[in-house]
């Protein structure tokens, strides 16, 4: 019971943190997994949203909504810009895309810091969400709790949009077979651009909502980028549920994990990622080990048979 009590908050926080990471990575999931664009400027768009939240937000609900609208709009615009920028190199593979989007991220990051300044920003949160609530005798930040709700809503909405709606069907169909989508009379390029615009809006919106937790600063873009990349790749490119599970796993690794194995804490994130990739990679090391184990087992059986 004591053990449970001691680990309740980290475990809950792992879910909350995972939800936050899911929201943060959602835009990249869409852009990379469904739009096929390895967007290394994703973190920069998040940072832009976060700065907008710090600039516009004043602790009132109205301004929070306004910031959300502005952040999403700015993100959508950057998604459109990205679609235009990527079009000429679309056929040249991921490395060239990485070079391009990394260049955009560097330029964008410099512009953000020049405009908003390098100082950490205070992000005002509506009074009702500012403090903490008591759960089973423990304090927990209200905003994060509310965030779990928003993230669950967003996950549901994203799932519905991508998996259930016709527009989402068009996006997934384009990932599956763009030629056949074109043969249906839909321009894959329009679908692609729309995907990136929505992905940008998601990233910008996530920045606004996440700002009180991941405060905007010059390093925000890099941090968010790296986390998102891990979540998208571990969660299988483009899968909403996969990204959700990966995000919660990363969240738990960084909360429950650091409590349970404090000595390994610095290695946990990337170690866990490496193991996850090995386990789920079809061409990975495990099938081969399984095959070799079978060979050994067969030989052992043959030996036993010979000995008997």
């Amino acid at each position, binding site marked *: 019971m004591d053990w449970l009590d001691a680990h309740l908050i980290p475990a809950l926080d792992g879910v909350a943190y995972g939800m936050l990471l899911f929201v943060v990575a959602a835009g990249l999931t869409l852009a990379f997994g469904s739009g096929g664009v390895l967007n290394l400027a994703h973190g920069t768009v998040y940072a832009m949203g976060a700065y907008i939240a710090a600039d516009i937000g004043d602790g009132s609900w109205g301004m929070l909504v306004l910031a959300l609208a502005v952040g999403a709009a700015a993100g959508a615009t950057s998604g459109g810009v990205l679609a235009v920028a990527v079009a000429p190199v679309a056929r040249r593979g991921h490395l060239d895309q990485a070079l391009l989007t990394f260049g955009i991220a560097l330029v964008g990051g410099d512009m953000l810091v020049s405009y908003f300044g390098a100082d950490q920003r205070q992000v005002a949160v509506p009074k009702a969400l500012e403090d903490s609530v008591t759960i089973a005798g423990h304090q927990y930040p209200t905003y994060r709790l509310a965030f779990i709700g928003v993230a669950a809503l967003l996950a549901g909405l994203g799932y519905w949009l991508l998996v259930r709606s016709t527009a989402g069907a068009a996006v997934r*169909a384009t990932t599956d077979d763009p030629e056949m989508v074109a043969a*249906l009379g839909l321009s894959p390029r329009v679908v692609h651009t729309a995907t990136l615009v929505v992905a940008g809006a998601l990233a910008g919106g996530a920045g606004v909502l996440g700002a009180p937790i991941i405060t905007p600063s010059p390093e925000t873009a890099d941090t968010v980028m790296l986390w998102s990349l891990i979540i998208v790749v571990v969660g299988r490119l483009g899968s909403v549920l996969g990204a959700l599970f990966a995000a919660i796993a990363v969240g738990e690794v960084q909360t429950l994990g650091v409590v349970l194995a404090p000595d390994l804490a610095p290695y946990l994130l990337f170690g866990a990622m490496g193991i996850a990739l090995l386990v789920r990679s079809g061409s990975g090391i495990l099938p081969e080990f399984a095959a070799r184990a079978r060979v050994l087992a067969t030989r052992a059986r043959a030996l036993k048979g010979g000995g008997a």
Partner: protein
Amino acid sequence: MTDEEHMAEVVPLARPRAERAAAADGGAPSAPMLDIRSLTAGYGGGAVLHGIDLTLPRGGVLAVVGPNGAGKTTLLHAVAGLVTPSGGSIRIAGTDVTGKPPHIVARVGTAIVPQGRRVFASLTVEQHLRLAERAGTKRRAWTPAARAAARARVAGPVWTRADVVRLLPRLGERHSHRGGELSGGEQQMLALARALLLSPALLLLDEPTEGLAPAIAHEIHGLLRTLAAQGLTVLIATPQAALVDGIADDAVYLTSGRAATATGPGTDAGFASALTGARDRADRHA
């Protein structure tokens, strides 16, 4: 055939062959539905088709017959815009679609049932149908090219989701299954339904019974016959003329993408059994 009677009964669109020409209206009335002139096309710089000429009148059903590798798929892909021709021209109901991207060609009134079905593995049957219906009926023209395509559109018989489910009841049964989970025959039906929901005037079919169990192939065959009878203009690629027996009223033989020889109707009557014929030729070799 009870199958066929069943179809004729449930599909209200069926019309006698004589009405075909009248059924396919729109576009320039005098122009043939498909007019291909000295078409050259291929992949990655290499030509697969070398100067194909081909005309398909409205309401006609033309079989493109030839062995694997002859260029049948390339021909159909070129018409659908999936391959950019390196020479020649393609007109659909008088509209020049040479080198137009596939979504524009589709908007002019074409639909393709590709080889290997190519259904979307991650979409359910229902989503396939919804997406195709939306694409067929609620398409919006954002670009000048799309607007031009909309103006040039040749109207075909209008299909709704209810129509195709009535025609292919099995799709209704499996509406929540993903494309990747369907059997080959079901995928073929889905690909056909997906094409029909675009309400095309010209339907391109690429080896529609390939790799299917005989009973399913039989069923597909019956469906195609029904569609042909309704006056849809169809271009159908097949390795053996016998497979389009009772569907096509004309056939073209394609070998090595070079010679396209038009033949009169009824050629399939003389088509020998595949294996026997092969053995005969092998005996002559020996």
